[in-house]
């Protein structure tokens, strides 16, 4: 058992989540799950958020519109920067958590769920085939359990087929892929439980995807 799972206060990374004010509204039962690196902000390589990527104003506006029409906005991310890509660095971890809290504090997202595990992590306690690491559906199911979400009315948006896979496995009906040259990159043979196919809608950018959700809702 990983002692650091669910920990949001420890500086040692495990699976964790941060919640904002929006998460207090327990009447909301549908969610938009959004991948972070490469979807909410540009993919600048591992640990993108530490390089201060810009979240576009229009994206923020569209997200707030979805919040207003009754979606919980949930970030879901694999974060292998610590442990797998780099040695453990407490300052980087502190900065990473602070950046995540800023996003929540600004109301851009209501919740963020993070999985730091990786099957080839350099840190033994992070080295595992975690069921929360996308393409597995654990992060989504964690949110579902905490907030009693109706996944058949929820949406997942990502820039990788692994995001789509996580959404499909958890039973999310609408799955949106933001097209980019690296969206299919995934060692499919490593995921023995992969389905034979993935169905999803394609968008050129996140704004179009968010607009589609709003149009279909209103």
């Amino acid at each position, binding site marked *: 058992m990983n002692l650091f799972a669910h920990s949001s206060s420890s500086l040692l990374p495990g699976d964790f989540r941060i919640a904002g004010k929006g998460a207090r509204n327990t009447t909301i039962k549908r969610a938009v799950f959004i991948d972070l690196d490469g979807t909410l902000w540009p993919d600048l390589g591992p640990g993108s958020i530490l390089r201060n990527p810009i979240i576009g104003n229009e994206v923020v506006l569209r997200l707030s519109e979805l919040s207003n029409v009754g979606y919980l906005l949930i970030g879901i991310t694999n974060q292998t920067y610590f442990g797998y890509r780099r040695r453990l660095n407490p300052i980087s971890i502190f900065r990473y958590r602070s950046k995540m809290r800023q996003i929540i504090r600004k109301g851009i997202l209501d919740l963020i769920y993070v999985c730091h595990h990786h099957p080839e992590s350099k840190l033994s306690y992070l080295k595992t085939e975690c069921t929360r690491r996308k393409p597995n559906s654990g992060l989504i199911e964690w949110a579902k359990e905490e907030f009693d979400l109706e996944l058949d009315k929820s949406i997942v948006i990502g820039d990788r*087929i692994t995001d789509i896979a996580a959404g499909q496995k958890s039973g999310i009906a609408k799955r949106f892929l933001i*097209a980019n040259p690296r969206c299919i990159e995934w060692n499919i043979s490593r995921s023995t439980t992969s389905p*034979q196919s993935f*169905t999803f*809608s*394609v968008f050129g950018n996140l704004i179009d995807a968010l607009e589609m959700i709003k149009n279909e809702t209103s």
Partner: protein
Amino acid sequence: MKFNLLILGAGRGTRLSPLTDALPKPLLAIDGSETILLRIVKQFRKILPIANIWVNISTHPETFLSYLGGIDSEFRPQVLFEPILLGSANTVFELSKEHDGPTLVIHGDLVLSHVYIDTLIQEIFRNPRFTVFCHGRSSNRAKSTITISDSNIVTSLVNTGLNAPVDSKVLVNSGIYFFPNLQQIGSAPEIGTEIADSTLQTLITSGNLHAFEINEKRVSVDSFNQLEEARNLVKEEILRR
């Protein structure tokens, strides 16, 4: 009643190499920048109330997805991505896991005249049964043949190679199928099998598969000559309008 449209676009298109070395066959341009895929979508969108449009992809997926991300959302199909090429029978089966309803399945390399589409749609509305659309052809050029009873019920679909009897006209599968629903497809076919080989075989056995012959202009883009033929068909249609 709203219809689903599944465009089969996952094939490798090796006979059109080098054009298809980096480009999926449905993305070959047939009129300026308009691709075979876009033509199919526009033609059916114009004439049929559509609930969902899907295209299955497997070959050059990033190219396919970049293309789809750039086209008008009105004509943008949803995607069924196959990391391993499943074969059309299994693609339909995969789709049936999450979706149902009347579904038209069409090969993504088909360029159809507007008259062809009109005839096809009329038949679907007139007779919404499981249907394999086919065309007549001299038997010595037929790779697979369809045998039907007097009431147009398909009694067999036979892959003949190119050795069909040379005595008479035969019916050939045109690569377009209509499923009134997807839930009756049955169990998963073997990976890699074509629709005609497996999924439809079940329907033939139960006497449910109907054949309908359309001999209006259609081109299956499988060679450089056929690509040229398809482009000429599109030009003719534009001139006629």
